[in-house]
């Protein structure tokens, strides 16, 4: 099974719940890349409230394990995201107090099959087995001065292929936690991904992948075709 039952304990003393939410189009540049299309059908208007998606437990892989792709000739789109680790139950928290509910941060490689429509929940593209790598460690909130100004770099086979920042978002970490908690309670150990910059790189089976985020270290993994993974 894709879900390792080690996952909750892989980041001790932090404990993950296994619940992971991502947010669509939180980077201003990601929405801008859609241009006028964001105002046309089927969307009709840019998002107002945070648009979330779930990365279910079958997608999660522990540090050191590989990402999987079913189609040996296909590509995975790599969303390099800041993972916000929730520290205590957050329900309707004010933006000014939201950081008190954050335990720390971790790097997340949120991978999908490339898709160009965001109208319907893209479950077949985003909820695939072993498509979400988390690691290498949770860094305490106090050790990250400004989570909304961290450099994010993606390397494929050792070569830099994408550089972005956790900044330039519609909602920074505090505002995101606050706005999401208005309609759904976030529980201790839940991960809330703070969004993905536009231009996500793509990888194929056989690639080695690294994501670096300032102050959070380097998440290293590889992409394996499902057959080679013995599945």
């Amino acid at each position, binding site marked *: 099974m894709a879900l390792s039952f080690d996952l909750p304990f892989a980041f001790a003393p932090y404990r993950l719940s296994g619940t992971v939410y991502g947010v669509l189009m939180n980077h201003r540049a990601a929405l801008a890349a859609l241009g006028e299309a964001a105002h046309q059908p089927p969307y009709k208007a840019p998002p107002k409230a945070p648009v979330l998606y779930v990365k279910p437990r079958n997608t999660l892989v522990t540090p050191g394990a590989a990402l999987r792709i079913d189609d040996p000739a296909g590509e995975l789109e790599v969303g390099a995201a800041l993972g916000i680790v929730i520290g205590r139950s957050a329900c309707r928290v004010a933006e000014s107090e939201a950081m008190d509910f954050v335990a720390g941060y971790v790097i997340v490689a949120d991978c999908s099959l490339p898709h160009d429509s965001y109208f319907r929940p893209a479950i077949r593209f985003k909820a695939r*087995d072993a498509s979400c790598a988390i690691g290498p460690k949770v860094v305490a909130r106090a050790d990250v001065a400004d989570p909304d100004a961290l450099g994010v770099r993606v390397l494929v086979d050792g070569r830099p292929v994408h550089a972005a920042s956790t900044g330039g978002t519609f909602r920074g970490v505090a505002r995101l936690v606050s706005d999401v908690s208005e309609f759904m309670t976030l529980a201790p150990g839940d991960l809330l991904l703070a969004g993905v910059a536009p231009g996500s790189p793509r990888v194929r089976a056989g690639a080695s992948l690294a994501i670096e985020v300032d102050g959070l270290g380097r998440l290293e993994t590889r992409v394996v075709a499902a057959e080679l993974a013995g599945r």
Partner: protein
Amino acid sequence: MKRARVAFAGALHDATPGTAPGTLRLADGRVVAEEDVVWLAPFEVGTIIALGLNYADHAKELAFSAQDEPLVFLKGPGSVVGHRGRTRRPADATFMHYECELAVVIGKPARKASRAAAMSHVAGYTVANDYAIRDYLENWYRPNLRVKNRDGGTVLGPWLVDAADFASPPQLDLRTFVNGRLMQQGNTRDLIFDVPFLIEYLSAFMTLSPGDVILTGTPEGVSNVAVGDEVACEIEGIGRLVNTIAGDAEFGR
């Protein structure tokens, strides 16, 4: 066989129906009245997979045409409440509605299950009420989580009933009553994408694990609910799931 999970006298318990009506038998031997327990979801809930527009009459009601692929969305565990729970209706909502659905609970891991083998992965069934607040619909990953993944928005229970007790796939009447008045009805034989299809379709790209649950969609007859309404979703042979609509004040808002 029917099973429930309840809280009673300071602990969680597995329970089965007692011999006397209105009673539950806890695993430790105690027999208690149904009103004296707090009902939880009847199994440990894993990934919650939900279907939209999966009955032709309901799709028509919402003015959608036939789809070539199921409309699937996911929900988080924080949205779950059990039988006799309370679900908040925000004061600014103008259209909040129930959705009575057959919930299919996975019992054995399924990866690339064939249609023929699909039903062997099912542990049992329960009743789901998958609330939506249409005021918050946006056309991004629609239905978006603000509509569908609210606290208390996924009501499950009261019982998990063994799949072996039903035809495979089951053909069962669904009914929703609001304050005792019949508002919604249908039968699971009218699902556009039936249970074996859904297990085959989903397990082709995501491994289903024990405790994962598929909410198979709702028939026509959704209507607006108000604070204080009692909403009862019934599925023949599975159970009657009761929920009450609460106001903001109860939640300190």
